[in-house]
């Protein structure tokens, strides 16, 4: 099959990238439980990336490409993070960590966006309609994740940065 190595590369990029986004969104949501909108929307958006991972696995398998699906954080670590977040919810210092965590999600999602672009380009050139449809379903949601991070950073950063 021509371009199989390229396809494997592009699939691996979106797969690893979506795992990173899931991980970052989950961490964002867990760490910032007292920033309630962040907490709730991050969890909503992490379900998109988890759903992408499932779809990627199915589509890749159709092209004889398989991944070790690592899954999200094991529960004990998640629990520890929640506890730490609750204990530190009321911090006197401005919440720089929130800006940093939003930035991490934004960068991770941007990386996935580029990966989706590459995968879709492979599909265009290789006439792989199933992959084109996959990218057509998932990539717009990645872009929405990026826009969300950008909006939240734009909204929250003036207060955080000017009160340092």
């Amino acid at each position: 099959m021509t371009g199989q190595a390229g396809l494997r590369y592009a699939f691996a990029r979106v797969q690893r990238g979506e795992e990173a986004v899931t991980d970052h969104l989950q961490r964002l949501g867990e760490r910032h439980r007292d920033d309630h909108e962040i907490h709730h929307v991050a969890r909503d958006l992490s379900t998109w990336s988890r759903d992408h991972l499932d779809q990627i696995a199915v589509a890749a398998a159709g092209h004889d490409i398989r991944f070790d699906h690592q899954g999200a954080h094991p529960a004990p670590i998640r629990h520890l993070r929640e506890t730490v977040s609750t204990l530190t919810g009321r911090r006197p210092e401005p919440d720089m960590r929130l800006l940093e965590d939003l930035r991490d999600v934004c960068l991770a999602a941007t990386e996935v966006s580029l990966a989706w672009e590459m995968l879709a380009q492979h599909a265009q050139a290789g006439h792989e309609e199933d992959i084109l449809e996959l990218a057509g379903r998932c990539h717009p949601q990645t872009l929405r994740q990026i826009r969300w991070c950008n909006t939240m950073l734009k909204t929250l950063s003036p207060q955080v940065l000017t009160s340092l």
Partner: protein
Amino acid sequence: MEDRVGDASARERLNDLWGDRTPYDRDGQWPARTDECYADGISPEGVQRWVPAASLLHSNGDAMDIAVAGDRIVGVRGRPGDRVNRGRLDIKDLYAWQANHSGDRLTTPLIRRGGELVPADWDSAMTTVADRSRRLLDEHGPGSVAFYTSGQLFAEAYYTLATIARAGIGTNHLDGNTRLCTATAGEALKETFGSDGQPASYSDIDHADVIALFGHNVAETQPVLWMRILDRLAGTRPPQLLVVDPRRTPVAARASVHLATRPGTNLALMNALLHELISHGWVDHEWLGQHTVGFDELARQVADCTPEWAAGICGIESAEISHAAELAGTADRLLATVLQGFYQAHQATAAAVQVNNLVLLRGMLGRPGCGVLQMNGQPTAENTRECGANGDLPGFRNWENTDHIAQLAEIWNVEPLQIPHYAPPTHAMQMFRYAEQGSIKFLWISGTNPVVSLPELARIRSILADGQLFVVVQDIFLSETAALADVVLPAATWGEKTGTFTNADRTVHLSEKAVDPPGDARSDLDIFLHYAAAMGFKDRDGQPLIGWSDPESAFEAWKRCSAGRPCDYTGLTYDLLRQRGGIQWPCTAAAPDGTERLYTGGTFWATPGQCESYGRDLITGASVEETEYRALNPDGKAILKAARYLQPHETVSDDYPMQLITGRSVYHFHTRTKTARVPQLQAAAPRVWAELSMQDARRLHVTDGALLDITSPRGRIRAAARISDVRPGVIFVPFHYGYWDTEALTRPGPGAPGTAANELTITDWDPVSKQPLFKASVCRLEVATTAVDDR
């Protein structure tokens, strides 16, 4: 209490909440019926002066006259000539004027000294407030100062406050409690029509053949509007009602179709209704093609949303959904209304926008009997929105449009950079978060009681009681919130001050001062003007920033700011409002009689240069960029926006198996600061209750009147059980019952159970409108004791 209404006259209306019927036919004029109520021993002949006003304790804007004798308010009477109510008044407005005379009105400023609030004079109180805000401005900048206002002041006060906050202080932190009641209405209108502004009119009730009420218990939230619907129902060619509500409300009891959906599933239901409209061809494609964008995306989004799919999510029969869709899809004149059942529920804006889509798909806009009423809950919430005291900019201006900022800079004669426009104005829930974190250090609360009305009260109390936050409270009584303040400013109330207020269908009324306020209490406008003078705010020429000094000059200033915008007031004057009564904006030289319906020609305020907002992602709340908006909607059409249903954030579990929704009773307003001081209203609903279904009552061995402990992940309250026609699995608790009339004043006393529904509610808000979700919590019930409530 003096000047009391006699018991006999009160009983009459308390037993007959909506009064006698005056039936009328479709397209007829709603007949007048004058409601009135006077103190014992007073007859209309004994009244010395009649002073025009409008109703205060809901959003309906019912025109009324205040009866005055011996410089006291002695009663009220509806104005039969007014377009809104034709003489009718609801029970709250009939009786609540008595609260003005309460012996515990605030009559002097208070300053906290040695932990106690002690009386002070105005100069020392205002000097304390101004000194603190000036010092914070110098040391920490404008982001340390915030204002949280109301939906119950007058337009003149809001516009003055917006000018102070945006141009004087230069803070982005100004919002109203309208965030809790009307934020989603405004946002849904912006998303669909590019700009805020109520499309339809109350008079559309007279012409509609189907009225669809989405989460809108109009019988209790706007009783006079319900009287209008009841009179249509009693006439020939009555309308059919379609009602979505988990409770069998008085409105649902009269419905042709009542969908008692599971809380949190409104969007799934709406998507299924739209699916049915499209699949049955109940769509005006020609109108859509001329006046909207986005149909293909909407059709794609709802393609799989069959009634069968939604039925499983909403917990109702698919045939009921099909029946509802047929009713809406085949109506000749469809009027849709929306209120808190949608605005305070999961995916609030997305669901409210689908109601807009419902009328747009049918091309039913801008004609008699057709359209949408995105409602609100407070008398002047509309003014909070227009004047920019609500987390928007004055005159429905767009914070991302530099031309709009330049207009404001010219109106206020300040540098454009002085007006914060680097991000959306901060919403109330975020302001409380900044206060919790310590970056907001000064919070001025006017005319609202967040210690009872915001979600998760234990958290709100701890934020306001924190010594680091300087809290100013401006109110008419020592509310739960005022009791936690550093400075309390006594305000005049309705009947003691002059100003305009605008109801949910854009009708502007002038409400005039009838009597003096008690003691040293002052109007909200005078308090804000006093502060502006103490702060010495200047424009860029060194002249006072605020060039007005009384209600009428403030109104003239607001008119200049409204010029050329959707809410154009330039054709209105105090004299015209005195002569004519209620007039709907826009009122201009071109439309001197006001405007009954917006968008009559299918034209909107939605071009990129006009619109108030470029919109948001209905799921994430992310801002749509200007360039995207220009590409999507270059010609300023209405936008059909779609969204996918998501699982609610908090779902039932073994620990918390019931869903909790909160809401209003017809007898009380908000946190009862006025209505509990009215003997008739307080006696009608003296203490908190919880409604549950017969099925749940049997399962849990609950008898009517039994005391229930209701526990959520946030807290616990105790309430008397009321077995009612609420959906099984759902508990309804009214949110009115705080602690100001208990010994503990601000919170449950030691060992005493809580009574405020918001002890239980989750802190979560709609990512688009930022409206808190009061109908999105879970809870469990336990019988506290089987002793029957003594009422």
